[in-house]
């Protein structure tokens, strides 16, 4: 057995002010580290929850998003007749031909413009396909009228998007007759209106996408290979979950890389801080180190005692950082969805994976910060160490 952990722990406790200050530095880095991962996670979860695994999105071949896609009316009609399409309670196919357009709206207060997704939908199929979408105020738009409903986070944050207000786009004024909630999904950041009205207003001859529910979830592969092989069709099919995951990939990756870069830059500072603290700890305990060595503890016992001390210091930082980051879960962020350049609201999401990664990262910082001082401690000459304090 070597030097007990309580020795390392109590030394940290004895100089708690220094410990807290140093740990805070590392905690800040862990906070940034965890927060960016949580941001990427929140974004991805929001977008993935937007989709349902039983739904299929049909887009024009090699268009990455609905905004870039165009599906001819004739092609959309062909998709509608496929046997895999589920039939609703009303006897109609559970399928919606939709139009997705980006428009520019001003935010409340700041008047800063931002892109917002306008979705032309089919009633009731579009709603049946997205059970997460629930009207919370007002009513659904009447087909044939210039009426829309707004997602909750749009209604709150954009000028003219609240219930009873009027939005101007597509050279028309649109009355907001309802507000809907779509939980943590991306739909909460959209405005929905009747698809035929929207196509007229935006002078679009084609749909953006066709969304339908599979009769049987296992028939997806069969459907996909058949319609992608059909010479009359220039479309591709994705499960809706897959579609939204792909949508989030670029942004999540960007966030993770940004997080890494920030974390690495900051962690250099925090590690230097830990190194300085640990060097000071070693310098203050030279006689003590000499004594332990005289008693028969080996160099490696001293090395591990100081490494453990620094690991504990890092762990304190990690715990502080994770606690700080967990408070971020209370905050909802709205940011650009970089795929469609539209506004998207989501929250920092702390997962168990991020929790462990953050603590592991804090231990790594502690290890790096403590290594050099611990080596210095372990390499001391016993006699000189014992002489030093007198």
């Amino acid at each position, binding site marked *: 057995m070597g*030097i*007990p952990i309580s020795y390392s722990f*109590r030394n940290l*406790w004895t100089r708690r002010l220094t410990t807290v200050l140093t740990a805070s530095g590392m905690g800040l880095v862990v906070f940034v580290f965890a927060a960016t991962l949580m941001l990427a996670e929140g974004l991805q979860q929001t977008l993935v929850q937007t989709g349902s695994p039983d739904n299929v999105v049909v887009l024009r071949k090699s268009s990455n998003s609905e905004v870039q896609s165009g599906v001819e009316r004739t092609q959309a009609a062909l998709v509608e007749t496929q046997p895999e399409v589920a039939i609703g309670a009303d006897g109609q196919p559970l399928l919606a031909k939709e139009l997705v357009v980006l428009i520019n709206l001003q935010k409340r207060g700041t008047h800063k413009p931002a892109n917002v997704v306008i979705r032309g939908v089919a009633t009731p199929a579009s709603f049946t396909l997205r059970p997460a979408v629930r009207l919370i105020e007002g009513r659904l738009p009447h087909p044939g009228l210039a009426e829309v409903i707004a997602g909750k986070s749009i209604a709150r944050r954009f000028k003219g998007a609240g219930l009873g207000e009027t939005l101007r786009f597509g050279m028309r004024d649109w009355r907001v007759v309802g507000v809907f909630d779509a939980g943590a999904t991306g739909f909460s950041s959209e405005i929905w209106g009747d698809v035929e009205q929207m196509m007229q207003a935006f002078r679009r001859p084609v749909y953006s996408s066709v969304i339908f529910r599979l009769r049987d979830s296992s028939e997806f592969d069969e459907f996909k290979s058949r319609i992608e092989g059909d010479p009359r069709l220039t479309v591709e099919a994705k499960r809706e979950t897959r579609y939204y995951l792909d949508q989030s990939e670029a942004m999540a990756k960007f966030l993770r890389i940004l997080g890494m870069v920030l974390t690495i830059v900051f962690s250099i500072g925090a590690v230097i801080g830990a190194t300085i603290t640990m060097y000071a700890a070693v310098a203050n305990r030279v006689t003590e180190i000499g004594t*332990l060595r005289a008693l028969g503890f*080996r160099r490696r016992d001293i090395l591990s005692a100081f490494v453990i001390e620094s690991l504990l210091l890092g762990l304190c930082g990690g715990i502080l950082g994770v606690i700080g980051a967990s408070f971020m879960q209370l905050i909802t962020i709205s940011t650009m969805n970089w795929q469609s350049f539209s506004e998207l609201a989501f929250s920092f999401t702390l997962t168990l994976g991020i929790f462990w990664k953050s603590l592991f990262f804090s231990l790594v910082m502690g290890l790096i910060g403590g290594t050099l001082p611990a080596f210095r401690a372990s390499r001391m000459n016993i006699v000189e160490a014992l002489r030093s304090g*007198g």
Partner: protein
Amino acid sequence: MTEPPIVEIRNLSKSYRRGSQIIPVLSGISFDIARGEFLALMGPSGSGKSTLLNLIAGIDFADTGSIQIAGVEITGLSETELAHWRAGNVGFIFQFYNLIPVLTAFENVELPLLLTHLTRKERREHVEAVLSVVGLTDRMDHYPAQLSGGQQQRVAIARAIVTDPEILVADEPTGDLDRASAEEILSLMDRLVTEFGKTVIMVTHDPRAAEKAHLVRHLEKGELQ
């Protein structure tokens, strides 16, 4: 019947290098220390008393010569072997006690036992036994800062004897103590020799301390008088 001496030193030399200058400290010392001796090493400051003590205790390395302790030639041991040897054979008593401030009296005394294979329960028994020898059973949960100098030195003595080593080395053990505490420590060391059969080698420049010893030797100009 003559028992072999516990310490046999032959032609021991040690010098320090300060830059290009070589400072000879010990030049060819030879002497024996009998088992159960209470020896005081005296001499002017800088005469090499501590250096000699450190060599015997196995924390410093000689240039030439041999040191045999209880039949073991310690100048031939590697650093790790020496550490292991010290843990089992030498108890240290320092001028400034050198207790670990973040550990209680009990934990300080237990420290050398962490290098043995004793169980927790056995360690507790050993620690309590030596704390009662030094009369500090009631202080075992105190931290060093909560103890007087004399009490701290008694804890240090308990730590030095807890592994039951044959040799105790003490460098100015009373140098930081008032008269009364010093007396107490010296009587305690005397008891360790007479009652427990330890061999004590004590460096001191305090004549009163030397008086307590059974044998006094003087070190001067690198040689033993």
